């Protein structure tokens, strides 16, 4: 097994990426996360490296490639970073004392930018420890759904009217509801997209359309949503329609709980949501394409960006956390070296210092002879 060639890695990577493409709709993120982690496990297990830096290079290279193929799937890059953090923790022992300090974890990721000392352990031990670390991550991933459910059910009480969204696509919400139903007597309202088939495996009391959500919100006591990605500032990406549900919940002062597994928490901010928000089918019949394509832009985002103020609490597999404190758990999973030592970041930072970034067209447009008028 250990003698597997590099081509295998390339093939494995291609298979991973194609596997994501294969399904027409977005699959549960746990499945994607498992696949990515399996790939990374294979990487740390069989790839040749003689020091930690080499491994990090390999990780970064492969990580970049798989991330680039799906820039909006944050789960992929998060997991690459998480594995990279394990590698750093096991490889460099210099800061081991700091990392355990709860006080430091609050600010350290953002402040402490000093380089790690390359204090190396024997390679064989390192590989074993690394594999153990990734395996731990795998276990955490496997158990994270039940942990979320366990922690989340504390927030719901008997008599609640709970509004959920994207019930069909989120297996976490399904198991969450199943669990609280056993414990409490409550009423569930599911917001369905019009094209979505009803979920027969998991019948709920009410099915409503997204446009009804605002009026029904008056009766709802809790909103439970499932995040696609959570950013350190407490903002998050939700399935389309999620933001409007949050807005009407805010209007009626209904608490919004967002379920989110650890691998969905990203260690960086999103400067411009439009670079990752993609649009899906225009939602018009294809018969109109000849007339409309290129003349009409119909915006049907595949995911929605939601501001931190709209979410009451995030429920992760380890804790329940206020949106403004999300950044505190970042150090549990990511290493600052991965986030801030990348050339891109440094380049961007330099750019930030010298000029403003991404502000539309250049400041002045010199007068030109319009060929149309000429």
């Amino acid at each position, binding site marked *: 097994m250990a003698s597997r060639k590099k081509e295998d890695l390339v*093939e494995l990577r291609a*298979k991973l*990426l*194609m596997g994501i*493409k*294969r*399904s*027409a709709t977005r699959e549960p993120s746990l499945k994607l996360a498992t696949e990515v982690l399996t790939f990374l496990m294979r990487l740390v297990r069989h790839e040749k490296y003689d020091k930690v830096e080499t491994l990090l290079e390999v990780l*970064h290279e492969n*990580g*970049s*490639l798989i*991330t*680039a*193929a799906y*820039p*909006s799937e944050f789960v*992929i890059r998060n997991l*690459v*970073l998480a594995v990279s953090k394990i590698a750093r923790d096991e490889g460099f022992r210099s800061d081991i004392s700091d990392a355990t300090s709860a006080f430091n974890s609050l600010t350290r990721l953002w402040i402490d930018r000093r380089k790690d000392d390359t204090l190396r352990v024997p390679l064989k031990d390192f590989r074993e420890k690394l594999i153990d670390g990734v395996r731990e991550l795998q276990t955490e991933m496997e158990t994270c759904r039940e942990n979320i459910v366990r922690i989340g059910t504390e927030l719901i009480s008997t008599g609640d009217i709970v509004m959920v969204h994207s019930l069909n696509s989120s297996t976490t919400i399904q198991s969450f509801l199943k669990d609280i139903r056993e414990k409490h007597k409550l009423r569930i309202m599911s917001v369905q997209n019009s094209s979505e088939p009803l979920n027969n495996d998991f019948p709920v009391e009410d099915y409503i359309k997204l446009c009804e959500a605002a009026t029904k919100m008056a009766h709802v006591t809790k909103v439970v949503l499932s995040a696609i990605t959570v950013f350190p500032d407490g903002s998050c990406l939700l399935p389309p329609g999620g933001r409007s549900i949050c807005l009407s919940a805010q209007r009626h002062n209904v608490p919004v709980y967002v379920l989110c597994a650890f691998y969905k928490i990203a260690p*960086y901010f*999103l*400067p411009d949501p*439009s*670079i*990752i928000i*993609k*649009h*899906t*089918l*225009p*939602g018009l*019949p*294809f*018969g109109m*394409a*000849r*007339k409309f*394509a*290129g003349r009409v*832009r119909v915006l*049907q985002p595949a995911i929605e960006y939601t501001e931190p103020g709209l979410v009451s609490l995030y429920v992760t597999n380890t804790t329940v956390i206020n949106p403004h404190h999300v950044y505190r758990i970042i150090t549990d999973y990511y290493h600052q070296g991965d*986030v*801030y*030592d*990348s*050339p*891109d*970041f440094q380049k961007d930072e330099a750019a930030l210092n010298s000029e403003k*970034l*991404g*502000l*539309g*067209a250049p400041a002045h*447009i010199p007068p*030109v*002879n*319009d*060929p*149309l008028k000429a």
Partner: protein
Amino acid sequence: MAFIHAKCRNTDAPYLHSQIHRVKVPDAKVKWSTDFSEYSPPDYTDPKTFGKPYADDKLDGIKWNAVDGKINRKSHVVDYSFDDEGRPLNPMGRTGLRGRGVLGRWGPNHAADPIVTRNKDGRLYFVAIQRSDTGEWAIPGGMVDAGENVSATLKREFSEEALGGKKTDELKELWTRGKELYKGYVDDPRNTDNSWMETVCVHFHDDAGLLKDVDLEAADDATAVRWIDVFTDEPLYASHEQLIKMVPWGAVARDSIQKKDNEAKFSAVIVADNFEHRFDALFREGGTWCQQAVCNVPIIEITLEWLLRANLPKVILLVAERNYNHLKPVEEKWRIHFEQFLIVSCKDALSVGDTLRELDSRALVTSDFLLIDNPATFTNSTLKPQLQAFQERRNADKHNVMTLIYAKADDPQKSVIGVKKGTQKLAYFHSADHPSRVTVEKNLFTEEVVIRRDLVDTGIAFCSVNILVQEILVNEEILLLNIHIDVLSANEGAVQIYDYDSYVYASKLLLNHWLYPLSPENLFQSRDYAMQSNVADIYYAQDCIRYGSLKALRVDVLGTSSLLGKEGTYETAVKVVNSVIGNGTTIGLATRITDSIVGKNCKIGKGCLLESTFIGDNVTIPDNCRLEKQILSHNLIYPSTSDELNFIGQLLSPLPPDEDSEDGIKCVKIQDNVYLWKLTSGFSVWSRALRNNALFSVNGGGSNSDDLEEEDEDEDDLGEVDPVSIFQEEIFDSMNRIIELGFNDQTVRNLTLEINSSKLANNISMDDLSKYLFKSILQLDPCQTIPGFKALALQWKNLYTNYYRPQRCQIQLLMGLEEHYHAHDGFGPKLPLIVHFMYDEDKGLGVLDDTSILEWHNTLDGDSPLRPLMKQLVDWLEESDDEDDSD
């Protein structure tokens, strides 16, 4: 002209084991019946054969044309005749050498050739031995010994030559499975005027794996024996190549596979080439259609991507041999994502039909399949309900052979189809040249046919494997009887690229997410860059993002819904809308590009305005140009002085068309390194829905589609190409080719197939087919003489019986004859002879009935010059008719 033996007329080398050269016999003088008074070939009989038991000594006392004691001297072909010295004469004609040569017997020398085949890992193999003398591979056959029957020879030779003399029980079983493939004359280098080879070739297919564990062992006179691929490039001995070609490989493989695996997997077959002349200019200097980019992604990658989502396990790409190497990287990349991924290289494929025939002959498809005849066919449907419906229909009735997939969309061609209510069976299909016209037929009313104009053909079809079997294509009614259509649901779309208009449209759809999840950010990208878009939906190719951070995009250009390649340079105030710009392209100040595709490394000047334009790679456009609906092929430097509007809908290329290959193209030189390409068919290069004249009449840029249509209406007098003449031309070419190939049943079957394909392609009715087929036959070279006509007709008897059984077809034949008579002076005397020959059942063809002849005769004008010509025959027919009645 019929089969002429060639190998035994070779004068380049001396006759085998001798110093004697054959005398040259020209093709025209091969037949004994042709006078060739100066013919005086050398007489040679190999002295080594004298006194050998297998050789004849004297001519006296031999019982010719009969079984002579233990020796079979009957020919499989004919009763042979004799020369002045009493030697038998080669039934195929002169060879340039008299005597017995190295052969043992005067007259026919009988051989037997067993072709033993098996199917392994989806490929077909046959047992071949390598001859030690020539190194060529050959079938392990041999001469029939005296007193031996053919089947004994087959068994003996095979076990001697291929199995080292072993006889096993497995073989006994195998020998019961023989099917005779060929029996008759062999064009063998050993043949002489008086002595020739004949063979019986029997095909044994080992579909039960009988020979799986049997070791092949070469005999002393062979260097090797092994299973070789039937499509091998290795040289095959003499006539054996012909024999191998006679094996119905398609049927063999299908039979054996279907027996084993009834649940064969649904596969996708993509014809990876484009036979559209419009795109020729893009490949003038190499490259293939598949590699052509849409949204900077090769076409084939987009197609494979949606196929991946349709979840078909098996993909077969058919590609012309010259393009095979271009697809190698595609195979390497995609092989791992499908259970089976095959690229089939087709020799000399010039049409979709050619490639499909190749597919059949290789028997690679053994189950029903999805056919995409243009790789540039994109859909966001997974086709699951359509596939299911197709399979249900197939199970209900095996004759439901095909389902065409349509999408609800506006078709610029406004093509029309008729569908039977309820069953979705295709009942009316538009003609090729007037897609928007309905020719009303009675059955459209009686059968509750719904005429639909709201659909567009997606270019995707589900086909039964039987569609490949020739018999079905021979059935004239296939077009209407057994084809169904299925329509994609309203939110699913599909698009096909067949001209530049649809090219631009397809990229517009992809850029605007109309085919989501096929959209730029989801398309598979090469490892060197990734796509990121900004709020205006302009996609920028980025270097691979370091995953550690997210950075905001620069905004280089104005506009929306476009895709910009990497390393481009965009000056200020460039506006790009619904367009794709290739890598490394420079665009000047304030240039506007709308609905266009621009290739790699182009230089576009300042202040240009490009609207609906297709620009290849490395094109240079000077400042302040205004282009609309133009195609600029690779490496063109756009002439700055020209009046651009004259080129609307036209293609400019720096090179003239390749003289050898591109016959659908006319070319005008504008200036040095600028050539204007036009289609000979008169259609605009830009769009197949437009004619050139329509475009030229449009003033300015306002190409209003209504205007165009009006123009369209009076196009008839502008030298439009008539489908009947195309049909005639096509079948004439096919027939000439078949004649060149020589005669056997297979070639005639192929001819039938080609005629039927042309009929379908040009939407020719059965009546027209009957008439024009015969007219074309009459124009063939061999048919200029009566004996030539007769000889060919007898060889093509199957063709005649196939098409001329119904009486109305016979009458059409006679009408064709009549038209031919009017068009050709001096044909008169031949006409009654031909009619008689076609009528005569004993010596002629017997395809015409007397009633048809009489009926046709009645339709002739009273003063028609044909009446006196036909008088004798008609009188005789009427007489015999009366006689029949009185009996």
